[in-house]
C-alpha cells in the first residue's frame, strides 16, 4: 500500500515463445493439464471427440464443468477456466493452426494416436511442438510412420496426477527431436507451469513409474507375505521410510485401486523378461487376486466405496475402518504397535528385529537395488532419479538419498549378507557416498566415478543453497538472518511449523534494522513447505492459564511494533510465502512492501478459530486495504463489512491468485509458479525496489464508530440465531466488530494506525480472558482442529 515501487520490476523470465496451447483429449489428465496451462495465464484450446446431440463439444465442456467442482481444485481461480475454449476433434482441428504447443492426452491406443497425428500434422503451424502425455507407449513407436518434420517437433511430456499439484514433468526427447523444441518445452514447463523437469530416456515407464510401480508391487506383496496388517505396513512405509504418511495401502486408495492391474500388466508387457519386475509381478499371484477381488466388490479406493481403508457411518459418526488382508472383512482401523515404526533413522528401521524391521528391509533392499541397477539404462544422472521420486511420488527423500542414509558400504554389505546381487553402480562406488558437500556446492556421483555439481535451471535456488558454507548474519532458536549477496538479506523462520514465537518477533526486530549492517533490502522467506502456520498458541494458552495478563498484552504489543518496524523500515521488504501463511504468518506478510508469492500460497487470518481476532496488525491492515480499494461503493461500511467478513469467516485463499481477491495480496504483488524459483524472483523484486525507495506514508482513516459496530452486531445476532454461528463466534466477532468500526471514534474524527492497534489489543485481552477462547486454544492444540463452541 502506498509504497513506491520502482517500475520495471522483473517478473519471472517466462518463456514467451509459447503463447497458445492446445490439449487434445479432455479426460482426467488432458483436462487438468489444460486447466494448469490456464493457471499460468496462457490460453488453451481443449478438444475431445464430438458428442451426439446438439452440443458436439459436450465432452470437453463437461470436463471443464467437472473440474470446477473437483477437489483438490485443478483451477487456481475460477476465472482461469475462461482461458480455455472447448471444441471437438472433428469440427475444430483448424483451431490448432496457431497453437505453439499441442499436447495430446487421448486414449493409450497406438493406432488412434497415429491417426490423430496424421490429421493434425498438416494443420499445425511450422515450428509448433507436439507432445504426448503417454505413460506406456515408447516415443519411437509414436513417431513411426509420421513425417520427418513431425518427428523433429515431437516429444513426450509426462505429467503426474493431479498436474496442478504434482511437481514432476518427465520429458522424453527422441533421437530425432529438435534440441530447441525440448529446451522450449522444458523452460515453459519449469518457469510457466512450475514443474520440476526430469529428462528421461525412451525406456518403459520412464523414471518415476518404472521405480514407483516396482516399489508399490513389492511393498504390497511383502506385506501380504509377512502377514502385516494394512495399518502396520503403512506405519512402516509412511513416515519412517520417508514416504508420505499415507503409506502404501493408503496411497493405493488415493490413486485408485482399479488402475493397478492395468498399470502392472502394461509394465510387465513393456519390460524385458529378465527385468526384476517380472519376478515380483505375478498375474495369478496373491496380490493380483486380492486387487481383483476388491475391484469386483467396488472397493476401488477413495473414489469408490473405499479401498484398503473405508469410512463407515454409524450413528452419524464417521469411523475409519481397514480391510483385513486375510479375511477381507472390515473393522475399526487400529494403530500399529510395531516398535520399529518409531525408528527415526533409516538404518535403525531396517535393522529392527521385529516384523516391521524385516518388512522395511525387504522393501528397501529390493527397491533400492532395483533402482541402482537401472542406471545408466534410464538415465546417467542419479540426482534426477531422486528428484523424480520426490516430485512425482512425493517421497521425502529419493532412492539414492536413502542409500546414502543407510550408507553405501553398509547397504552393500547387508545385500551381500542376504545373498542379494550388488548393482555395479554401488560396488563401483566403493563405499563412497553418492552425494557430497563440497564448499557451497552439493555434488553427485557420476558414472565415471567422479563427482559433479548438481545442475539447476537458472533462477532456481533455495535458501539452503545460500546457507551452505556460510554463517548467518544473526540467529536464534526460531529465526535467522542470512546474507543473499547484492545487499539483500533474508529473514528465515525455522521454529516448529514456523510458528511465530517471541524469538521470531525478536529476529523481526533485528531484521528491521538490517540497513545498519549495510543491507539495502530484506526478503522474508523460508524453504519450509509452509511459510508459517501462525502464532505459537501453546505459549498463549500457558500464559492465560497462569493469568499473566500484562505479559500477554506486552507480547501482543511487541508483535505489533515489530511488524510495524518492517512496514516503515527505510528499505524495501519483500515477503515470499509458499504453502500456508496463516494467522500471525499472514500478518507478517501484510506488513511487507510487496509480496512475491508462490502460486500455491494459502493465506488467511484464521484467528477466530481459536477465539481471537488478528491482533498483530492483521485486522488493521485488511481494513486499511479495503478502505483504500478503488472501485467499491462509497461510504466506510462496505470496506468495514468486507474486512469483517474476511476475518470472521477465517477465509483462507486456495491459491496466490485467490489471495489477491481477499486483499491479502495486492494487484501488483507477483506470483511465481515454480517453488524453486521463488527466492530468486523475490530477490529480483527487492533489487528493483532499492533505487529511490521511500517508506509508505502513515495512513489515517475516518470510521463510523459505534453505529457500524451496531450494524455488524445485528448481522452477528442473525447468524447466531439461525445457527450459522455459535455463541462464542458471536462473542469473538462482536469484539472484531468493535475493532473494524474504529471503537469509540466518530465519523468526523481521524483514526491512526496506532489507534487501530490499540483496539486490536483491547479485543485480544477481552477474548483471552473468556473460558470459551481458552477451550478453543486447548482444543486446537490437542486435535489440530477448531472447536465450535
Amino acid at each position, binding site marked *: 500500500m502506498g509504497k513506491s515501487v520502482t517500475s520495471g520490476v522483473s517478473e519471472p523470465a517466462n518463456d514467451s515463445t509459447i503463447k497458445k496451447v492446445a490439449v487434445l483429449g479432455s479426460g482426467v489428465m488432458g483436462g487438468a493439464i489444460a486447466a494448469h496451462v490456464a493457471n499460468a495465464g496462457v490460453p488453451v484450446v481443449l478438444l475431445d471427440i464430438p458428442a451426439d446431440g446438439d452440443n458436439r463439444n459436450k465432452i470437453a465442456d463437461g470436463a471443464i464443468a467437472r473440474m470446477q467442482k473437483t477437489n483438490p481444485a485443478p483451477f487456481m481461480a475460477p476465472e482461469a477456466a475462461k482461458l480455455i475454449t472447448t471444441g471437438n476433434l472433428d469440427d475444430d482441428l483448424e483451431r490448432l493452426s496457431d497453437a505453439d504447443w499441442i499436447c495430446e492426452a487421448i486414449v493409450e491406443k497406438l493406432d488412434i494416436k497415429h491417426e490423430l497425428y496424421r490429421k493434425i500434422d498438416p494443420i499445425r503451424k511450422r515450428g509448433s511442438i507436439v507432445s504426448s502425455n503417454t505413460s506406456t507407449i515408447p516415443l519411437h513407436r509414436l513417431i513411426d510412420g509420421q513425417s520427418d518434420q513431425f518427428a523433429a517437433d515431437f516429444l513426450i511430456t509426462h505429467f503426474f496426477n493431479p498436474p496442478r499439484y504434482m511437481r514432476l514433468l518427465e520429458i522424453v526427447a527422441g533421437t530425432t527431436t529438435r534440441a530447441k523444441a525440448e529446451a522450449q518445452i522444458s523452460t515453459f514447463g519449469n518457469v510457466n507451469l512450475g514443474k520440476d523437469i526430469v529428462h528421461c530416456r525412451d525406456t518403459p515407464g520412464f523414471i518415476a513409474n518404472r521405480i514407483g510401480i516396482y516399489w508399490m508391487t513389492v511393498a504390497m506383496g511383502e506385506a501380504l507375505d509377512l502377514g502385516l496388517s494394512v495399518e502396520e505396513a503403512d506405519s512402516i512405509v509412511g513416515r519412517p521410510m520417508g514416504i508420505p504418511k499415507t503409506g502404501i495401502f493408503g496411497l493405493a486408495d488415493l490413486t485408485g485401486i482399479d488402475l493397478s492391474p492395468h498399470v502392472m500388466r502394461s509394465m510387465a508387457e513393456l519390460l524385458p523378461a529378465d527385468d526384476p519386475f517380472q519376478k515380483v509381478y505375478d498375474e495369478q499371484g496373491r496380490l493380483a487376486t486380492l486387487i481383483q477381488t476388491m475391484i469386483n466388490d467396488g472397493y476401488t479406493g477413495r473414489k469408490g466405496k473405499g479401498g484398503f481403508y473405508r469410512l463407515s457411518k454409524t450413528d452419524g459418526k464417521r469411523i475409519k475402518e481397514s480391510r483385513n488382508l486375510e479375511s477381507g472383512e472390515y473393522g475399526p482401523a487400529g494403530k500399529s504397535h510395531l516398535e520399529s515404526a518409531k525408528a527415526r533413522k533409516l538404518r535403525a528401521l531396517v535393522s529392527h528385529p521385529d516384523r516391521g524391521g524385516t518388512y522395511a528391509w525387504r522393501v528397501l533392499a529390493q527397491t533400492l537395488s532395483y533402482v541402482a541397477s537401472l542406471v545408466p539404462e534410464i538415465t546417467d544422472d542419479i540426482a534426477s532419479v531422486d528428484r523424480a521420486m520426490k516430485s512425482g511420488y512425493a517421497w521425502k527423500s529419493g532412492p539414492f538419498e536413502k542409500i546414502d542414509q543407510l550408507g553405501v558400504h553398509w547397504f552393500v554389505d547387508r545385500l551381500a549378507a542376504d545373498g542379494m546381487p550388488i548393482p555395479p553402480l554401488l560396488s563401483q562406488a566403493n563405499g563412497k557416498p553418492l552425494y557430497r558437500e563440497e564448499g557451497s556446492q552439493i555434488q553427485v556421483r557420476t558414472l565415471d566415478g567422479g563427482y559433479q555439481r548438481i545442475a539447476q535451471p537458472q533462477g532456481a535456488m533455495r535458501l539452503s543453497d545460500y546457507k551452505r558454507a556460510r554463517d548467518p548474519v544473526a540467529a536464534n532458536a526460531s529465526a535467522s538472518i542470512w546474507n543473499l549477496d547484492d545487499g539483500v538479506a533474508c529473514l528465515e523462520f525455522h521454529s516448529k511449523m514456523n510458528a511465530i514465537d517471541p524469538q521470531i518477533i525478536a529476529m523481526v526486530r533485528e531484521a528491521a534494522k538490517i540497513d545498519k549492517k549495510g543491507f539495502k533490502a530484506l526478503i522474508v522467506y523460508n524453504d519450509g513447505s509452509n511459510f508459517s502456520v501462525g502464532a505459537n498458541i501453546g505459549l498463549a494458552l500457558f500464559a492465560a492459564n497462569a493469568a499473566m495478563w500484562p505479559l500477554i498484552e506486552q507480547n501482543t504489543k511487541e508483535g505489533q511494533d515489530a511488524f510495524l518496524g518492517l512496514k516503515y523500515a527505510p528499505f524495501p521488504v519483500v515477503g515470499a510465502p509458499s504453502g500456508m501463511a496463516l494467522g500471525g504468518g499472514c500478518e507478517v506478510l501484510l506488513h511487507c512492501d510487496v509480496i512475491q508469492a508462490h502460486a500455491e500460497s494459502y493465506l488467511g487470518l484464521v484467528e477466530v478459530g481459536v477465539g481471537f481476532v488478528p491482533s498483530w496488525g492483521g485486522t488493521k491492515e485488511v481494513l486499511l486495504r479495503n478502505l483504500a480499494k478503488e472501485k467499491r461503493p462509497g461510504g466506510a461500511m462496505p470496506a468495514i463489512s468486507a474486512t469483517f467478513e474476511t476475518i470472521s469467516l477465517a477465509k483462507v485463499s486456495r491459491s496466490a491468485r485467490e489471495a489477491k481477491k481477499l486483499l491479502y495480496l495486492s494487484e501488483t504483488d507477483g506470483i511465481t509458479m515454480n517453488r524453486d524459483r521463488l527466492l530468486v524472483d523475490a530477490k529480483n523484486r527487492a533489487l528493483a525496489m532499492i533505487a529511490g525507495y521511500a517508506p509508505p506514508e502513515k495512513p489515517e482513516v475516518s470510521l463510523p464508530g459505534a453505529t457500524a459496530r*451496531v450494524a455488524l452486531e445485528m448481522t452477528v445476532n442473525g447468524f447466531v440465531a439461525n445457527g450459522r454461528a455459535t455463541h462464542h463466534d458471536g462473542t469473538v466477532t462482536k469484539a472484531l466488530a468493535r475493532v473494524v468500526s474504529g471503537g469509540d471514534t466518530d465519523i468526523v474524527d481521524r483514526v491512526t494506525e496506532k489507534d487501530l492497534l490499540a483496539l486490536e489489543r483491547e479485543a485480544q485481552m477481552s477474548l483471552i480472558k473468556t473460558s470459551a477462547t481458552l477451550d478453543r486454544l486447548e482444543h486446537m492444540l490437542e486435535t489440530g482442529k477448531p472447536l465450535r463452541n
Partner: protein
Amino acid sequence: MINVVISGYARSPFTLAHKGALARVRPDEMVGQVIKALVERTGVEPEDIEDVIMGCAFPEGEQGFNLGRIAVFLAGLPQSVAGTTVNRFCGSSMQSIHMAAGAIQLDAGEAFICAGAESMTRVPMTGFNPAPHPGLYESGTDVYISMGQTAENLANKYDISRESQQAFAVASHQKAASARANGGFADEIVPIIVGNLRVETDGGIREDSSQEVLDTLEPAFDKTGTVTAGTSSPLTDGAAAVLICTEDYADRKGLPKLARIKSVGVSGCAPEIMGIGPVAATAKALSRARLEMKDIDVVELNEAFSAQALAVIKEAKFDEKKINLDGGAIALGHPLGATGARITGKAASLLHREGAKFALATQCIGGGQGIATVLEACDG
C-alpha cells in the same frame, strides 16, 4: 370530498434478486419504462400530471438523486412534471397513493403518478452504509430487528405451524401460476427492454412448489424456528405504478376508472411483531369508510412471510378465500418500494374484474407499522 380514482395500473415483471432476469437492470430505468407504459396505456395527457410520487425503501445508489424526479426524465415526461421520493419501507408506494389522494383533497393537482421501485440486487436491503443509532439499539428496542425474526415471533405468538405456513406458500404459488396461465397478469406487466435484454415474465413463481419440497429447507432465521426461505417473500427486483386522478378529470378526459379510493389508514405497532401491522391500519381505514370486514369482497394482503400473513388473517378474521386471488409476494416477490403500488393497483383491477363492490389493500412495514387502503367500485 373530491372523488379520487385509480385510473390505471402497470408493473414490471418481478424477478428474483441476483439471479433473476432484471438483476442487470437499473431500478430507475425499470420504473421509467413502467411509468412511460402506464401513461401510454391510460392515455393521460403528460402535461396534466402534477407530480411523480415515488416509493423506495432504500433510496440511495442507483435509487438515489431523488428517484421520483429522475423517473420523470426517464419516462419521457415533460419537465413541468414534478417528482418526489417517499419512504415508508414496504409501504412506500402505497404511501405515494395516500399522498396523491391527500394532495387532491387540498386541490393541489388533478393527476399524479404514484410509483415504486426497488432493485434488491443493486441496492442491498439495509443500504450500503447502515448506520443505526447505537444508543437506541442498545436501549433494547427492537426497531432494528431482522424481519425474519419478527415472522418467527408471530409464528410463536399465534401458534402457526410450519406445515400451515408451507400450505399458505404452496397456495400462493398455485394461484400465481394459474393467474399467469389464464392471462391474469397480461394487462399489468410492462416488458422491460434494455439493449438485447427483454424481460416480460415473472421469475419467482414455482408451479411445482409442494409441502415435500418445502420440507427440505432449513430454518432461515432461527435454528429452532419454523420460518424458511420457502415461506418468506424472496428478495426481488421490480417496479410498479398507478395513475391517481380526480374522478372528474377521468370522466372529462375519458380515462379508465378501476376503483375509487374510499379511505386510508396507517398505524404503528410493536417492532418485534411488525407483521401484525395491517390489523390496526385496516381497522382505521374500515372505520373511516364506515364499513366492516364482511363488506370487503377482495383483499390484497402483502405476504411478507406466510406466518405474518396467517397471523393477520387470524387476528383480523379475514376470509382466506377473498385474499390474493392472483397469488401474493411469496410467489411473485416483494421489491420493497414497489409492492404498495402493485397490491393497490392489483386490488383495483380485481375489483373491476370480479365486478365486486369493495376492496382492501394492506401491508405490514418493518420497524412496526401497517398501512391500508379501502377501494370502492366506480360503477357502484
